[in-house]
């Protein structure tokens, strides 16, 4: 197989990997915030439910969660889903897994805002939603950028787990090409792809961090 054809095939997988990455972040970042707020709510039942959810998501392998989401509907409920579900199973599993990690990061970020900020807002008459949106949330974002960057970088590499349910992302394609062609070339390209992808993400995150440098906490 020519190099051009190989790259062509790999690039299809690449597109899928990027799509998994983007969709996961798009849904898990807001979902994580919601989970964090419920985890911090005064409602005991809600609080404990979230505690359990986070604990399970962090305590079991992502690949196992992926298999449960993919096969669960059929084996547990007898629901037959179209082959398209493959891809969505990956997104669902990734979103609920990453939301749990993000939730804990948000929680830490919110808890690290000094109580004086809440008090100042209270005395000035801000409502609790105003206090959160205007005062607490922006300061939380600044604090959590470094740990969020860590998770986002892990996510790039985690997208390769989609091969477990035969979604043809980058790694699946590379593996198939490598065994068909009996050469390492595809792996090398795959490695370069993940590395460059990470470089771009790290660059973007660093820029966000710099943009928030106009003030100090």
């Amino acid at each position, binding site marked *: 197989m020519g190099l051009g054809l190989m790259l062509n095939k790999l690039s299809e997988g690449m597109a899928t990997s990027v799509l998994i990455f983007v969709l996961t972040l798009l849904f898990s970042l807001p979902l994580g915030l919601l989970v964090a707020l419920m985890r911090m709510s005064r409602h005991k039942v809600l609080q404990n439910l979230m505690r359990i959810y986070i604990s399970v998501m962090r305590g079991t392998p992502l690949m196992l969660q992926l298999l449960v989401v993919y096969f669960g509907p059929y084996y547990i409920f007898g629901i037959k889903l179209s082959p398209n579900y493959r891809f969505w199973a990956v997104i669902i599993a990734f979103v609920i897994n990453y939301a749990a990690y993000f939730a804990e990061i948000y929680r830490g970020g919110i808890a690290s805002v000094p109580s004086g900020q809440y008090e100042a807002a209270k*005395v000035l*008459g801000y409502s609790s939603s105003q206090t959160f949106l205007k005062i607490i949330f922006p300061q939380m974002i600044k604090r959590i950028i470094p740990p969020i960057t860590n998770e986002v970088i892990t996510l790039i590499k985690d997208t390769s787990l989609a091969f477990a349910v035969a979604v043809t992302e980058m790694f699946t394609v590379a593996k198939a090409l490598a065994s068909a062609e009996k050469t390492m070339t595809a792996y090398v390209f795959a490695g370069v792809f993940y590395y460059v992808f990470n470089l771009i993400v790290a660059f973007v995150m660093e820029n966000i961090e710099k943009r928030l440098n106009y003030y100090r906490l």
Partner: protein
Amino acid sequence: MEIFSINDVRKSFSTQTDVLCGMSLSVQKGEVVAIIGPSGSGKSTLLRCATLLETMDSGELVYEGIKAAWNGPAGNVVYAPEETLKKIKSKFGLVFQNFNLFPHYSVLKNVTDAPICVQKRQKEEVFEEALTLLKKMGLSDKADAYPFQLSGGQQQRVSIARALAMNPDILFFDEPTSALDPELTGEILHVIRDLAEEKMTMVIVTHEIEFARIVANRVVFIDAGVIIEEGNSDKIIRNPENERTKAFLRKLNL
């Protein structure tokens, strides 16, 4: 005219019982009251109860005739409905020991945001007033700076401007100079003295005894959750009658 009164307030925490054991304080319009006393005596807790940052166990809290809290029939404190409290909150301001400025807002935004977003006042009017306030605080050139770029004294002056921008009828100060380097306390005391000359009603918790004597009309000495002695500031500080007041002042003069 009475601006503020707190009557027979009691408060205890789970970690420390009986922080406030039935204290009462009433402040008239234009009056400057200094609260002095050893640390742990309940000065700050009194201020925090007055500014609704802390709930009282029992007692009554009144601003300009409007009750913010009172003793309920079951012996617990009843707080006024949220709407009333919102109205009451616009009557007072609080200056914190640690400034508590919003670090992500510029100086001007720190001062203008609450009047615009909470009091829903006209932007142009608020900005104009804020710039006048900053000028008065000697911070005209700092409107676009962020809190981290300012000295402690400058930050505290911004926080005073922020409180004043709400047009409060009474201003509380919780040890406004305690977090500052000694050479910076002067500028804050100067600002407060100017406000006193303008007949701003103020309650100041402070360790600056000489400042209290000069600026306050009345000094209240607190110890162990009760008011030990109060009266004309000159008299209380120069000629206290109570032994505990004498002992406290003697320690400071060492």
